[in-house]
């Protein structure tokens, strides 16, 4: 894949899924994002995290996956912030991840 923006040194895309607790919802985003990325042939590290550890975990992330409620709290970031409406709709995730990561 082509690597846009702030790719990590090893060229693997870093994605962080954010929710309030760092378990549960962000975990579902993580596992479904990994499934979609495998299908798209994009190599990526996907981390489940919560707002409290966002600064540490998402400092070098290219993509942040989250719900609309967290966009303001995430604040300014170099990452593409993707707002997911239906966490179980892998077509939605696929469409949005592909747009953000600009696969060829």
């Amino acid at each position, binding site marked *: 894949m082509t690597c846009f923006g702030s790719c990590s040194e090893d060229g693997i895309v870093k994605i962080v899924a954010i929710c*309030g607790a*760092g378990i549960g919802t962000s975990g*579902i985003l993580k596992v479904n994002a990994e499934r979609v990325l495998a299908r798209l042939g994009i190599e990526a590290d996907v981390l489940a995290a919560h707002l409290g550890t966002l600064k540490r975990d998402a400092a070098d992330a290219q993509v942040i996956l989250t719900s609309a409620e967290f966009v303001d709290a995430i604040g300014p970031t170099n990452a593409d912030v993707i707002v997911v409406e*239906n966490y179980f709709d892998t077509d939605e995730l696929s469409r949005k991840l592909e747009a953000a990561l600009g696969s060829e």
Partner: protein
Amino acid sequence: MPLPPLDERAIIIGAEATDWRDAVRIAGRALADAGVARAGYADEMVRMIEEYGPYVVIAPGLALAHARPGNAVLKDGLGVVTLATPVPFGHPHNDPVHVVLALAITSPAGHLESVAAIANVFNDTSAVQDLIAARSKDDVLRILQ
């Protein structure tokens, strides 16, 4: 990949909830009845939504209520509450909620396997409709297998 344990006592069919807080508290009581969490976990789940908003409504009609691991969680477990009358959580896309899943996790480490199992069930878009139509605890157990 196993689902978090689902005790029959943590399944409630056709509950009458007055609002979203009531729906989440019913799910919290179900977890307490199953010995999964202390009574206070219900309020912790409500507080998460009060603090962060209705993001737990992660798919149309479905809320995944949960709080952080802590003293209120006795063991890993899942609760399932279907509502006789759906209630709004204030979510822009996925309201109203017909089914509340309640998740209790003792430790973030290793919880992703069980969350992946939840995703396996609900990535099939018919799962929520099937739960709404469930008439018995056995129906629910079958859908979540």
